């Protein structure tokens, strides 16, 4: 089944649903299929993702949204502690912002 088309005005709810699906796929490799995922969920403490899992997520985001959503550049602008504290909500905001910027540009 193809994923739904990217809406012209990306809504945070739709992006959260996309990212939740990607995270489920990553977590499934660890046999984890019941951790709750919401805007305040942290990648490190709540989901126990390792940095190499975020590389996988970066590939999924690029596949879904194209090169305008660049997780490597987004995280490279943060310091180590910020990355440790990173939440799903902050990534959703970044994706929504990137998609809107791409449309405006």
């Amino acid at each position, binding site marked *: 089944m193809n994923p739904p088309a990217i809406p012209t005005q990306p809504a945070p709810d739709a992006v959260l649903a996309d990212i939740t699906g990607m995270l489920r796929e990553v977590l499934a490799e660890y046999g984890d299929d019941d951790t709750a995922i919401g805007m305040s969920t942290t990648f490190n403490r709540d989901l*126990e993702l390792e*940095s190499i899992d975020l590389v996988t997520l970066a590939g999924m985001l690029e596949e879904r949204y194209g090169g305008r959503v660049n997780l490597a*550049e987004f995280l490279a602008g943060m310091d180590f502690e910020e990355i440790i504290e990173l939440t799903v909500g902050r990534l959703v905001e970044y994706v929504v912002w990137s998609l809107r910027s791409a449309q405006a540009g």
Partner: protein
Amino acid sequence: MAMVDAGGIRLHVQRMAPAGGGTPGGTVVLVHGLLTDSLASYYFTVAPAFAAAGLDVVMYDLRGHGRSERPPLGYTLEHNIDDLTALLDRLGVTGPVHLVGNSYGGTIAFGYAVRRPERVATLTLVESEPATPAWARKLGGILHRVVTQLACNERDAIAWITAHRGHNTARLAKGAARLARETSLGRDIPASRVHTEAEIAAVRCPVLGIYGGDSDLADLVPLHEARLPDFRSVVLPGHEHSVLVEAPGAVGGHVLDLIRAGAGVVR
């Protein structure tokens, strides 16, 4: 995710193309460190800046690490150099490359420069040193502690690390314990063939050493200056062994300075 067959072992490779899609101003190959490390230490730190500077960026997970295949045996330095050689051949990267290695990754990068000097344009050793008898003894001690204290007594060790170093370090340590238990890495690395002083002195390309000011490895700078024909170093105060992920802006900037000084074509 790209899995590449590098001479009988499947390695996880990530590439970042030079910004703007133009002809790259060279290829930079980034080699990560032991046990808790993976290509992610570059992917989310210096790699985007290297691509933005016009370089073709190649990152890969060492055997046993990250998303690469984990065979039970075959973890000497020679295996790692073989993997890097086969990987670059497989990717069609034939011109001289800019090699960057963090910790043990620098030891691999140096070993590649010993074996294929004509293929290396510059070499950056981040918190790293060439394989010598002293290096093998030190790694032997570290890996012996990992195997005896962590892998064989994991529950107590992880409880201590969680209490004293935090949750994140404890999770990294669990991964290290698993790698040490499931493979011959702990035995193989200290048993690796090391370089002679003549082999080390024959690495004539520009070599940059980057060290944390609070790391023991910074003490080796005078030795490297004496034994290598073209060596310069940068010591970043206030940092220890994790200087790459703690100070990526400074580390990446010094690597680009080294590359630009030699090539003059990088934007």
